[in-house]
């Protein structure tokens, strides 16, 4: 694809604003190789590529509060695939101002009505406790919302508010034990270190303890063996493998061990454990890439569920009338995503839409269309294959 074509694609994807963005703006950096001779691939996000301090250029959905999606071309990392490289891991903050926390002054408070003690733990205390390392997909519940028309309220993410990382930290059960969690403790709530917007609302998220424990939750202080970036919750965050990440509270400062729901939970839903649904994303070729008519297109993607294990992934070039089985790479861990590959015919000149569909071992699989209950919930936890179709241009 020549640079004219890329500009046209950017224009299509972003509206006129993208032209202003790419014209000498300070932070906007479309990869140089994407506009030089011989390069072919768009990055895999419609948003301007902007680098936060210490991060790679990511798709800037919002600048403030900082919300950046990983370009699909970077979801599978280069250093330790299939894990996403730390600097490419997506960023989602509700707080307009993100603070650097002094790890020497940081304290985590743990207590509550269903605990015998109230304790304050330093980072040194936490590092002295047993550690566990677990790889898992982390996915925003709003994944793909920005692909839905008409637009619905909420962050307009496309395909990049998801990543896969290896987290190191303290198993939550160790901390609960130190605080003397009672046998009748049934809810655990986490509070982030900062308040949200002018209302200065605390960010509390509560979980059902029994079902959360089945997922092996931890308080993580490393991502991919590196200190957490501030953008991903430094110095400490909640990680619950195999679940949607809105409740993985970043910069967590307080744990409330309870017998009842937390009265100030952010969403106000009943405490639960939001398990990841079976899901797949084609990451190569990226959306907007050009392929030759009559050619065979090699696809690569990632697929995951909440730890049940995937039975299969299939792809379709005829809107789901027929399916082609994908080849699955080996699993690197029950909560990590698996890479899949498939070859499909490009067909005639025009637009090629490729669907992918993951199926879990328990028989659950991605729907073709968005179910009504998902629409009614603000397009949260959407996995509809048609929403996430790869869209390629076939040139005659």
């Amino acid at each position, binding site marked *: 694809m020549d640079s004219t074509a890329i500009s046209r694609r950017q224009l*299509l*994807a972003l*509206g006129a*604003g*993208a032209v*202003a*963005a790419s014209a000498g*703006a300070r*932070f*906007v950096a479309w990869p140089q190789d994407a506009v030089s001779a011989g390069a072919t691939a768009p990055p895999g*996000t*419609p948003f*301007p590529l*902007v*680098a*936060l*301090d210490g991060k790679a250029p990511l798709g*800037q*959905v*919002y*600048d*403030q509060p900082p919300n950046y999606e990983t370009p699909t071309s970077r979801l599978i990392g280069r250093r330790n695939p299939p894990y996403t490289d730390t600097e490419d891991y997506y960023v989602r903050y509700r707080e*307009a*101002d*993100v*603070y*650097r*926390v002094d790890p020497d*002054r940081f304290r*985590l*408070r743990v207590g509550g009505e269903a605990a015998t003690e109230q304790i304050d733990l330093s980072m040194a205390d936490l590092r002295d406790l047993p550690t566990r390392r677990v790889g898992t997909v982390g996915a925003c519940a709003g994944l793909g919302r920005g*692909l*839905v*028309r*008409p*637009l619905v*309220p909420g962050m*307009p993410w496309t*395909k990049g508010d998801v990543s896969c990382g290896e987290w190191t930290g303290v198993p939550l059960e160790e901390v609960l034990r130190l605080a003397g969690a009672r046998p009748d403790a049934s809810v655990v709530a986490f509070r982030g*270190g*900062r*308040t949200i*917007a*002018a*209302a*200065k*609302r605390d960010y509390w998220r509560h979980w059902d303890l029994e079902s959360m424990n089945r997922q092996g939750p931890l308080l993580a202080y490393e991502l991919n063996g590196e200190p957490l970036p501030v953008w991903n919750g430094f110095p400490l965050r909640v990680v619950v493998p195999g679940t949607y990440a809105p409740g993985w509270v970043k910069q967590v*400062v307080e744990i409330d061990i309870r017998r009842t729901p937390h009265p100030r939970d952010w969403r106000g839903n009943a405490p639960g454990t939001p398990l990841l649904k079976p899901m797949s994303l084609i990451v190569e070729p990226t*959306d*907007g890439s050009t392929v030759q008519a009559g050619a065979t297109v090699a696809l690569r993607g990632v697929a995951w569920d909440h730890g049940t294990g995937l039975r299969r992934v299939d792809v379709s070039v005829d809107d789901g009338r027929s399916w082609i089985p994908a080849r699955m790479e080996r699993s690197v861990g029950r909560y990590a995503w698996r890479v899949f590959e498939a070859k499909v015919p490009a067909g005639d000149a025009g*637009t090629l839409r490729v669907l992918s569909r993951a199926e879990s071992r328990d028989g659950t699989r991605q729907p073709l*269309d*968005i*179910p*009504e209950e998902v*629409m009614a919930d603000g397009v949260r936890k959407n996995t509809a294959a*048609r929403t996430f*179709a790869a*869209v390629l*241009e076939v040139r005659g």
Partner: protein
Amino acid sequence: MSITRKIERIALALVVVAAAGAAMVVLVVSGEEDPAGSPVLADAGAVVPLPEAQDLRLRPGEGRDLVAATCTTCHSLAPIIRHDGFSAEVWEQEVQKMITRYGATMDPGTAERITAYLQKHYSGPPAPAAGTSDAPGTAPAR
């Protein structure tokens, strides 16, 4: 735009005063956010700098300055511009949500003028997303 950065911008002629004011704001905010006795969270003033988006310019029209001044108290213009295409009803709900859920302080007349601007200038057909403009299946199943 952060509160501190905004203060600095408004008080361009009083740089020193503005900087001192910004530091105080941060301290006050920290005090409000961290009730007495709760764990230490952060060094006052250690806000991580954020790159500002370069493509966020509101369309000209009556109420633009009011929208820019009011809405950027808590967030940049991105949540407006990235939602070009919201229906009139959704824009009204969003403004009300900012007041009731997020604590935006504005009188009913201001809310009305802001809503009218957003409905007039940001309810057009949205830009296609990532090449999926006419995608089947992007509407809910029936």
